[in-house]
Structure formats: structure tokens, C-alpha cells
């Protein structure tokens, strides 16, 4: 299995949509074949269309807000005493997380295809919140599927969705988390694909959704590349990019523009959710050696039992609480371009405490996983190493959990 240079990774799949010949694909009910093909044709055309790209860039610039900040975390760097620690503050983006990129592009595509309704899944509530914002902006009706457990633990985002006029549909099946929300959203699309567009909230699902999402979030690394050159004059000789990995959309977008660099120069580190330290359950299929299986239309490493039933996951972070992982990351893992590891609930919380103690930055529980591993490793690295963590979400949505686990003083009221 080989990663090709000079070809975008999203376009390295074969004719059936498999990366490395075995990850991804389109394991979908017959009914979805046609709408997926239509979306593929549209996307393949538009991603080469200069007018469409400038339209996208216009919205990214003026509405999403580009670029998001790239800042040095001076106090943390001093405290840790190893590598330089930087952050790409993607939570600056309109709505407070990277999910806005994919949501915006899907709404632009939906408009072009003449659809009036868009449906989407959400875990942490960011994908849903951003889709509700973009749908409102582009005049589409919006339906969001969300696990009942996530609705309870991510209330601020649920309120935001409703305020934007989206219908939030609770999903009570299975573990009542993201995996069930995606299933229910796909079912809704099966029954309504003639009138409704679907947005999958991460780089998961049938191949075209993986590609659209990765194409959209790549804005992050496009910005970062320019910012690194502005700051250092060139891409640093030792650069390490840390990102949490749920479905894998923020991490893929954070890395994409650096794909062709030697990994000795630009290393990618993906941090999955290890779950509670005491629990056997986790959401880290790459770290803990899960087998390849099919979930939500794509072949990927996925937590499952020997019969092929998908296993329940557990994580403090609703956004990472997913048993599978993008085919793109399976491909990056098996080609050894990226390295994957996990942080536990407790470790993520400790990193959140440390970051908020030293910096004016409030990463949500998802990026707190990445901060944990980055800070641990930065300690052992020389100060000419540039460590960058994608702070891809804001902790406002997690205030309930943070208050419960860490006490009131860690929760700001805004």
C-alpha cells in the first residue's frame, strides 16, 4: 500500500472508492447508489470549477472567518521546557469548531443540486450546530440526528441548533451516541433522497462524503502553511502536528497540505479517545488494533466483535465517541504516514486543566486529548522542534461535564 505524491489523498481511491484497495468504498443500500453518484458527479465537477472555488473561499473568508489564529503558547512552552508549543486556534471559526467548513460546502452543493432540505448527524453537536448555521444562511431546511445521550451531555450546542431553526431528532437506538445518529441519518436519507441532501459530519460514510469533508477541512492546513512560512520563513525542519481523531475530519484537514513532506520533517500524530482509564471500552480503533469491518458504508478499522456486530464505545468526549474511523486515516496508518495513539478521559481532563491554567485558550474535550499527548511528548523534544496542536473546538459546549468532573472554577460563564 502506497501513498502517492502530488495527488490529493482524497483522490487516491480506486474506481470503486477504495483507498489502498481496501478502505472506504460504497457499502450502501441500492436506493442510495443514484444520489451518491449524482453527488460524485457534481462534486468532481465543482472542485475543479474556479467560480465554485472562489465562492467557497468567499464564504470561508467572510463568513467562517479565515484565517483562524496560529499562536505560540509561551507560558506552556516555558512550563513544559522542551519543544516550542503552538496552537492553530480553529475554534476561532464561526460557530466554534472546524465542522463549519464541511457544513458550508455541503450546503453550497445542496443549493447547486436544487435540494431544499439538508439532513446531518452530530455527536458533540458541532457538526449539527454548524449545519444548522449554514442551512439557515443558504435558506435550506435542516434536520439533525443526534443520540439521546449526546443531547443530554451537549446541551449548549443543542440549543444553538434549535435557535437556528433546525429540527433536532433524538435517536434512542443502540448506545444513543454518534454511531446511532449517523445510522438514523442515513436511514432518513434512504427514505428522502429525492428531496433531501445529506451531510455526513466527518470524513466517514460512503466515499464521496469522505472526500467532500476532507476537501473542505483542508482549509485548515492551507492557512497553517502560510502562517508557518510567515512566522519561520519556511516550513520548520522539525514540525509535529497533533490532532484529536474522532471520525478524522479536523486531523485530515490539519495535515492535508503537508502530506508530501517527509515524515521526518513533518510528523502527523493522531490522538484517539481511550475512554475512561478504568473501562475496557474505548473509541480508539487505530490505537488498539481493531479489525477491518464495514460501518456506515465504508470499510475501515472498527470496534466490533467476532460476529461483526459494532461494539459500543465510551468516551468523555462526544465528538470522539465513535467506533470507526475515516478510511483516509486507515490509509495514512497503513502507509505509515501518520502515527496514532490514544488519551484517556482523565488524561484529556488533566490537559484541559493545564492548558487553561497557563493560556487564554479553552480547548474542548476533543482537542484536549491531543493536547495531552502533545504536551507529554513536547517535554522530551528539543526547542527547535515546533509542536502544533489543532485546538479545533471550544469548551463552552462541555461546561456541564467540566463542572461535574473538575468543579465550578474551570467553567466560564459565557
Amino acid at each position: 500500500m502506497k501513498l502517492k505524491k502530488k495527488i490529493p489523498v482524497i483522490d487516491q481511491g480506486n474506481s470503486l472508492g477504495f483507498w489502498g484497495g481496501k478502505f472506504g468504498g460504497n457499502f450502501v443500500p441500492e436506493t442510495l447508489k443514484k444520489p451518491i453518484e449524482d453527488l460524485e458527479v457534481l462534486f468532481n465537477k465543482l472542485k475543479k470549477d474556479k467560480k465554485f472555488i472562489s465562492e467557497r473561499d468567499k464564504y470561508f473568508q467572510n463568513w467562517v472567518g479565515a484565517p483562524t489564529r496560529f499562536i505560540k503558547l509561551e507560558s506552556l512552552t516555558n512550563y513544559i521546557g522542551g519543544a516550542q508549543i503552538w496552537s492553530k486556534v480553529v475554534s476561532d471559526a464561526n460557530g466554534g469548531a472546524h465542522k463549519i467548513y464541511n457544513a458550508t460546502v455541503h450546503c453550497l452543493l445542496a443549493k447547486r443540486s436544487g435540494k431544499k432540505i439538508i439532513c446531518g448527524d452530530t455527536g458533540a453537536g458541532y457538526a449539527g450546530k454548524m449545519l444548522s448555521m449554514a442551512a439557515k444562511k443558504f435558506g435550506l431546511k435542516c434536520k439533525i440526528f443526534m443520540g439521546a445521550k449526546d443531547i443530554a451531555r451537549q446541551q449548549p450546542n443543542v440549543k444553538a441548533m434549535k435557535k437556528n431553526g433546525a429540527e433536532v431528532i433524538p435517536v434512542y437506538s443502540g448506545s444513543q451516541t454518534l454511531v446511532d445518529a449517523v445510522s438514523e441519518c442515513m436511514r432518513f436519507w434512504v427514505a428522502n433522497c429525492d428531496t433531501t441532501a445529506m451531510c455526513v459530519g466527518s470524513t466517514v460514510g460512503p466515499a464521496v462524503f469522505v472526500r467532500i469533508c476532507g476537501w473542505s477541512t483542508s482549509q485548515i492546513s492551507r492557512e497553517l502553511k502560510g502562517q508557518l512560512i510567515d512566522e519561520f520563513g519556511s516550513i520548520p525542519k522539525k514540525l509535529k502536528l497533533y490532532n484529536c481523531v474522532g471520525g478524522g475530519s479536523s486531523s485530515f484537514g490539519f495535515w492535508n497540505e503537508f502530506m508530501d513532506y517527509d515524515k521526518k520533517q513533518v510528523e502527523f500524530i493522531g490522538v484517539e479517545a481511550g475512554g475512561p482509564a478504568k473501562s475496557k471500552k474505548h473509541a480508539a480503533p487505530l490505537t488498539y488494533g481493531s479489525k477491518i469491518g464495514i460501518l456506515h458504508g465504508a470499510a475501515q478499522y472498527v470496534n466490533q466483535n467476532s460476529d461483526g456486530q459494532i461494539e459500543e464505545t465510551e468516551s468523555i468526549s462526544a465528538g470522539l465517541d465513535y467506533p470507526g474511523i475515516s478510511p483516509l486515516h486507515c490509509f495514512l496508518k497503513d502507509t505509515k504516514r501518520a502515527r496514532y495513539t490514544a488519551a484517556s478521559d482523565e488524561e484529556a481532563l488533566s490537559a484541559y486543566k493545564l492548558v487553561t491554567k497557563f493560556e487564554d485558550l479553552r480547548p474542548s474535550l476533543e482537542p484536549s486529548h491531543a493536547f495531552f499527548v502533545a504536551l507529554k511528548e513536547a517535554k522530551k523534544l528539543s526547542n527547535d522542534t515546533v509542536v502544533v496542536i489543532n485546538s479545533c473546538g471550544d469548551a463552552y459546549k462541555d461546561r456541564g461535564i467540566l463542572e461535574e468532573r473538575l468543579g465550578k472554577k474551570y467553567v466560564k460563564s459565557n
Partner: protein
Amino acid sequence: MLNPISVAFKKARTENRPALLTYTVAGDSSKKQSLDILKSISKSADILEVGVPHNTPVADGSQIQTSAYRAIKKGIKIIDIFKIVRDFKKFDKSKPIILMGYYNMIFQYGENNFLNKCKTSGVNGLIVVDLPWPENKDFAKKCKKKSIYFIQLLSPTTTSKRLRKIIQNSHPMNYFISMLSTTGGKLKVSPREILKNYNRIKKINPKKEVVIGFGITDKTIGKLKSADGLVVGSAICKEITRSLNSRQNPVINVGKLVRKLKNKIK
């Protein structure tokens, strides 16, 4: 030897009626009960579809999901499902059985192992909901070598060009999904419209059997009589749930329901 599925269609045709296909989930609400249900309906039904329950079923509505979760909760494994089929075949050797499920379970079992097990247990056909054409080409070939029908699904969204290709490559039986819906949806298009689409498919190759499924109940089945076969699934799963909730015997109630369905298409 002719596949018992084809024999069943022939028999129905001589009786001037569509074949009746039922769908029940293996292990719902227990291994024994699901076997007893199969036995109780085998006289009225022509072909038995046995659902392989999966916990991430992206094409199933709430009734079949409920049945599947119930079965999984009781601990049903693939190996048990093969045993149910084998035990059923001891009871009624000639009644065709089709397993219907999702690809991951076959993939984990191993395609070849799975087919070998199907063969030795007496499975006559397979429907794999999320393995569409052309992704299913290789697997369908393997099925053919074992004389197991791989049943292609067709939908109202399937383009004419695609229909022709699929039918050309298909085994003797195909399955037309009546409308844009998961299983168990309310019939939202008229039987006339469904039959129009059905006839469009039949015209491509009249020799291939085409059954219609999704949304069919005892209320609507009579209006679709001109098809080669009709599948009733969610309505049966719903009856199992209703029976359990009202502390009645699902085996008796499902038996009654299937007899009723049969009477409507005679």
C-alpha cells in the same frame, strides 16, 4: 437440481398467484421461538427470508430494528442462525430459505466460510442489503458456484441503464424495493405506481423472477397480486412485538397473520 427458490415460484405460478415471502429475524425473540415461528408459517409461505440481525442496520426501519435488537440482546450468533436453518430443514426439507443481512457479518465470517456454512445448513439464497452491484460481482459469482442465489436489489432510484446491467448479470431472482424507504415505512406510493416500475423491470428479462417488498401489509398485499412474489417483513416483526407486549404467543399470532396474507393473494 433446480434451486428450491425457483421451484417455489413455479408452484405459485401454477396456482395462479404470486409467491408469498416472509421475513422474520433469526433469534427473535429467542432461538427456539424464531424456529417455531418458521415452522408455523412454512405451510402458508412459499419462501422464508431469515434476517441475520445486525446492530447498525442502515436500511431498516423501527420494527425490524426492534426485532434485531431483541435477538442480539438474547445473544444470537451467526453460528446459531445456521443451526436454526438446519433444524428447520429437518422439519421441511424443500422449503427455500434466504438469509438476509448486512455485509460486515459475512466479511467477518469470511466469504468462503460463510458460503460453506450456508451450503451445509441448507440456505438457498442471500440478500445482502449493503452490498450493491457492482461491488457484489465477485461474491455473487462465489454464490453461484455453490448454487446459492445471490439476490440483487433494485430500487425506484435505479437508473434504466443500471437496471439493464444488473438484470443481465443477475441470478434467477431479484428483489424490487417498492419505494424510497427503509423497511417498514408506510406505503407512500400507489400500488399502480409500484407495479409500473415492476413491469419496467420485468420487461428487461421476463424470465427472471422479481419480488416486491418494503411496506407491504395485509391491507396492501392484495393490490400487488400480479407480481412474481411479495415480501412481508415489518408487518410480521410488528406482530411479534405486539404479541410479546400483550403477553400472547407470537408463534400462534404470526401463523395466523401469514395465513391471512396467503388468503389475500389466492
